[in-house]
């Protein structure tokens, strides 16, 4: 989860934007309330999307307040309180952060991940008590992901599958929703969000990965040879196929969303699904081309 899932701000109504900020701050406050000051540093926009989608399905009981906080001392901000979906998103965010740190420690070692793990340990213990099965499932998917990377898996679909299944698990909030049909749709939203994030991140990082020699399924599947091909050329070569895939994920995601019976936040979520994600897709896809134009 890397912060690609964002709204298209110019298209938002002012009140929707306020609400969006309120969810963002709400996640932060929820983390503080349940786990203390320190884990708040890992906040990420993608989880606001999760909170919004889930809250759309639950009856409204949230309390919206205007308040100051130490990070933004100057202006009062909108904060959403008493919203189970926000607490759930905060929990999932911390759980994934912890696993990510474990992964980093294995890959790079060093002090930073170790320190992070030490700090988050009590948080993690609490979370695993509440979400035991889900936690184990998510961890298993992350391990699969690491294995595939180590093996140098050359198939985009195979490589993205574990991450997509992980996100499926994250979106299937059994604690908030009991209807099995709704959960199935949430799983589909999670799966396709995961695939989209995985692919857009891989396409975005092509240069960096090619330079450092780190794993990227796109470089392997379409056989990138650094000595023989310019990166801009490679980007252009795979552009159409990557675009097809990204838009396909978004098509399936939006189809699943349309089938949900939504009680609120529709405008906000649809801004993200139909505009924010499309804009991000186009931005990342065009990145190579704009760079090309510069030398002229």
């Amino acid at each position, binding site marked *: 989860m890397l912060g690609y899932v964002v709204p298209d*701000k110019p298209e938002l109504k002012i009140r929707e934007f306020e609400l969006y900020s309120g969810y963002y701050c709400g996640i932060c406050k929820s983390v503080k309330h349940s786990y203390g000051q320190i884990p708040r540093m890992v906040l990420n926009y993608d989880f606001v999307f999760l909170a919004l989608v889930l809250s759309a399905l639950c009856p409204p009981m949230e309390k919206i307040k205007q308040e100051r906080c130490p990070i933004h001392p100057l202006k009062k901000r909108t904060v959403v309180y008493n919203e189970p979906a926000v607490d759930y998103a905060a929990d999932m965010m911390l759980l994934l952060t912890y696993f990510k740190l474990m992964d980093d420690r294995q890959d790079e070692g060093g002090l930073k991940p170790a320190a992070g793990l030490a700090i988050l340990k009590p948080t993690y213990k609490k979370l695993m008590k509440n979400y035991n099965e889900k936690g184990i499932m998510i961890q298993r998917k992350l391990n699969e992901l690491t294995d595939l990377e180590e093996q140098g898996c050359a198939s985009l679909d195979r490589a993205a599958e574990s991450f997509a299944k992980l996100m499926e698990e994250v979106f299937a909030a059994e604690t908030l929703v009991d209807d099995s049909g709704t959960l199935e749709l949430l799983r589909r939203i999670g799966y396709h969000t995961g695939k989209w994030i995985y692919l857009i991140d891989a396409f975005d990082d092509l240069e960096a990965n090619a330079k450092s020699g780190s794993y990227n399924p796109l470089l392997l599947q379409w056989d990138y040879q650094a000595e023989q091909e310019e990166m801009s050329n490679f980007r252009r070569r795979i552009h159409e196929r990557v675009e097809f*895939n990204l838009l396909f994920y978004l098509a399936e995601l939006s189809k699943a969303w349309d089938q949900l019976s939504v009680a609120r936040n529709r405008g906000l979520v649809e801004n993200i699904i139909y505009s924010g994600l*499309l804009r991000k897709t186009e931005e990342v896809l065009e990145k190579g081309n704009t760079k090309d134009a510069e030398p002229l």
Partner: protein
Amino acid sequence: MRKEIQKMQNPYEVLGIKEGASIQEIKAAYKEQVKKYHPDRHQDNPLYELAEEKLQEINEAYDYLMKNGSYTGGGSSYSKEPSGGSQPRQSPEFRQVRIDIDRGNFPAAEAALNRSKNRGAEWFFLSGMLSLRKGWYDDAVTNVQTAISMDPNNVEYRTAMNSMLQTSGGYRTNAYGRGYGNSNDELCRMMQCYCCADMLCDCI
């Protein structure tokens, strides 16, 4: 699926360009046409549905050309296609596989396909359909493309390919239909820059 078997129109005609136009020309024509038929321009207007239909056609044509027309030079090959195409050839060996895919019994379908030694066009097509159902869209396209190259006249394979391209392109149409236009004009881009900068101050 049945109703989609109607033949696709000549994508060059739909976009209003000559056959064999370059990618730049196709893209330019596409943008122009999308602007022209954009549902935004026809809101509360009897032409709304027509415009929407036309936009769908334009998207299909564009996707088709981007996918096939530009590099295979096959842009004109489909217009030579015999009017009905060939009848779908479905071998009895794969009947059970088709049933399993339809019912969502993917492990059984996968096992049967792995066992099969007959790796002709239909094998690739069904592997593609299985991938499609699993959510492996990239694999799906690769396999169906292989099937089409092995049996270019098969209507079933082409229909499946068209429908995948339509799904992918349909999302964009849908987004535009909801009034989220593409932001080509400068003002919009400027606003975006401003808002991004603003967002950084606001939120983080």
